[in-house]
């Protein structure tokens, strides 16, 4: 029975995006990043590192929301989980690579718990639950302030980078190492059987179930994978900022992430890259406008407003996002 089912789903599968092999992207991306870190000035290199860190989480989120149809507003909180785990680990053991892996594992575990609940919820219920998760972060850090040190947060102990490179270069390498691995893994995953299962569940749960796909298992797996990406991103942000605090992971961060994947085109890894770039570029532009206008109030809020306008306009005019102005996003299954 299983054999037959496998053959059927394979043959009837939604055609996957046929593009360059992920491995080539990985190599080209690595070369590009290395080249950029040696040509860009330090501040731009730092921004490049931030883009890499954002790319980890937007790539994971766009797979979850775009390919599997689950909306999560809790990814800011998952990033906080990864960041705090790394901070606690570093302050005790100071072994960065292991620390990042531990951060990913812990976030994956938290993501599995949320994902188990999320798999049973749809639409606004899921959005409300994950929103509550995002809002609860400061409450947790204040309640257990012995561990998380309340609003001040923790600093992150880091060894100095190798002598041959600057801090910014090192940060960019670490972040993009993580980002490229994330994108590579996600590209492989979504092209294969798992990707087809996710799309099938998104488009029509009943049909997917009839085809023998375990809807709940697919949804939980998608959430867990995406949570792992968020955990990595959180850990990388902790490395870049060398500190973690609840203020770095507000609700607006989760909304920004949503904006990033929507504007880039839901479910596309190139869209995740566009989104990650915008997440760094737009606040920088808003900052310059704010400085030029001499108004502090303008700075952060201009970016906020702009993101909001973009989100609304894109959803109303081109739900497929910038990466797909020609090909509209397939309508998601509705019951």
């Amino acid at each position, binding site marked *: 029975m299983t054999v037959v089912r496998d053959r059927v789903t394979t043959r009837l599968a939604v055609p996957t995006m046929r593009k360059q092999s992920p491995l080539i992207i990985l190599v080209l991306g690595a070369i590009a990043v290395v080249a950029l870190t040696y040509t860009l000035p330090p501040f731009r290199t730092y921004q490049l590192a931030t883009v890499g860190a954002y790319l980890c989480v937007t790539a994971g989120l766009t797979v979850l929301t775009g390919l599997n149809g689950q909306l999560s507003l809790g990814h800011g909180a998952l990033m906080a989980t990864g960041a705090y785990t790394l901070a606690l680990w570093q302050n005790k053991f100071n072994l960065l690579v292991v620390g990042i892996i531990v951060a990913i594992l812990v976030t994956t575990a938290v993501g599995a718990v949320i994902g188990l609940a999320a798999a049973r919820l749809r639409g606004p219920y899921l959005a409300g639950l994950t929103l509550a998760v995002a809002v609860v972060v400061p409450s947790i850090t204040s*309640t257990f302030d012995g561990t998380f040190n309340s609003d001040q947060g923790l600093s992150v102990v880091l060894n100095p980078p190798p002598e041959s490179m600057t801090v910014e270069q090192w940060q960019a390498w670490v972040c993009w190492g993580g980002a490229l691995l994330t994108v590579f893994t996600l590209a492989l995953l979504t092209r294969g059987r798992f990707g087809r299962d996710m799309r099938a569940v998104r488009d029509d749960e009943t049909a997917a179930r009839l085809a023998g796909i375990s809807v709940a298992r697919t949804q939980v797996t998608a959430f867990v994978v995406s949570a792992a990406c968020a955990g990595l991103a959180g850990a990388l942000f902790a490395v870049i900022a060398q500190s973690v605090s609840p203020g770095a992971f507000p609700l607006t961060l989760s909304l920004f992430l*949503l904006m990033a994947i929507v504007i880039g085109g839901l479910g596309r890894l190139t869209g995740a890259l566009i989104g990650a770039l915008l997440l760094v570029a737009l606040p920088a532009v808003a900052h310059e406008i704010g400085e030029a206008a001499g108004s502090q*109030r303008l700075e952060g809020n201009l970016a*906020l*407003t702009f993101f909001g306008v973009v989100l609304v306009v894109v*959803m*109303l005019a081109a739900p497929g996002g910038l990466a797909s102005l020609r090909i509209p996003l397939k309508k998601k299954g509705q019951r």
Partner: protein
Amino acid sequence: MDRFLFLTFDGLSRGAVYAAFALALVLIWRATRIVNFAQGAMAVATAYVAYSVADATGSYWLGFIVALLAGLLLGAGVERVVMRFVDHSSPLNGVVVALGLVLIIQGVLGMIYGNEFRPATAPFSRDAFEIGGVALLSRYDLFVFAAVGAVVVLLTLLFTRTPTGLRMRAAAFAPDVSRLLGVPVGGMLTLGWALAAAVGSLAGMLVLPTELGLNPTAMDIVFISAFTAAVVGGLDSPIGSVLGGLIVGLLLSYISGYLGATVAPMAVLALLVVVLLSRPDGLFSRSSKARTA
């Protein structure tokens, strides 16, 4: 025991506000199958307007009335300009658009008023007066009960006793048939959004003096609590949302009183998870099958 009584009344007062806010969510959900995630931000926006008017004129009540009117206008505007054009093929779209509105409103408010907390004054004393030696209720709590009670009664009368209310219910439950029968469905939706936003503004005006004060993000936690209240009540039931609001208010009051205020958001999350996983149609419904809306 005294403390328990005090916390109970405090919880009921908070719960009344959550009930009003949840009622606003339920109104829109029943009419359009959209949970208005921008409700909190919209309420904050009208509260800012209200306090600007109150500061300029010196009259709290003028500001209060302006808040309700601004709520009506904002609700109608959001429906007419944005929500009407949302593609309903996926339930995600409405949520995402509402979240975009949250960003816009918070950004604009921050640009105009700044991101600091501003004091939100209460029209009545918040000191509890003692009954039989026990501090139970403040004048402000009584005002909250009266205001929320009036809203519930007025909405009930509107929906059950007036032709407009009947049309609104018809437009929500069977839009196509209603349209054939001559009900202006679009207009009813606009009216529904306007009413809901005004109720949300009222809840915002009532809750802000009891929280940290005015801030663009001041209603985030209130929104979560009210959403939980609406879910506890079943999201489809106005009476359920009022009961849900009172339950959430009591729970939050006991948790804050006995365990500390920082634990309260976690308690809301826990309640939301438990209700969604065990009784997704609300505590008062008989079925418990998973929501697929």
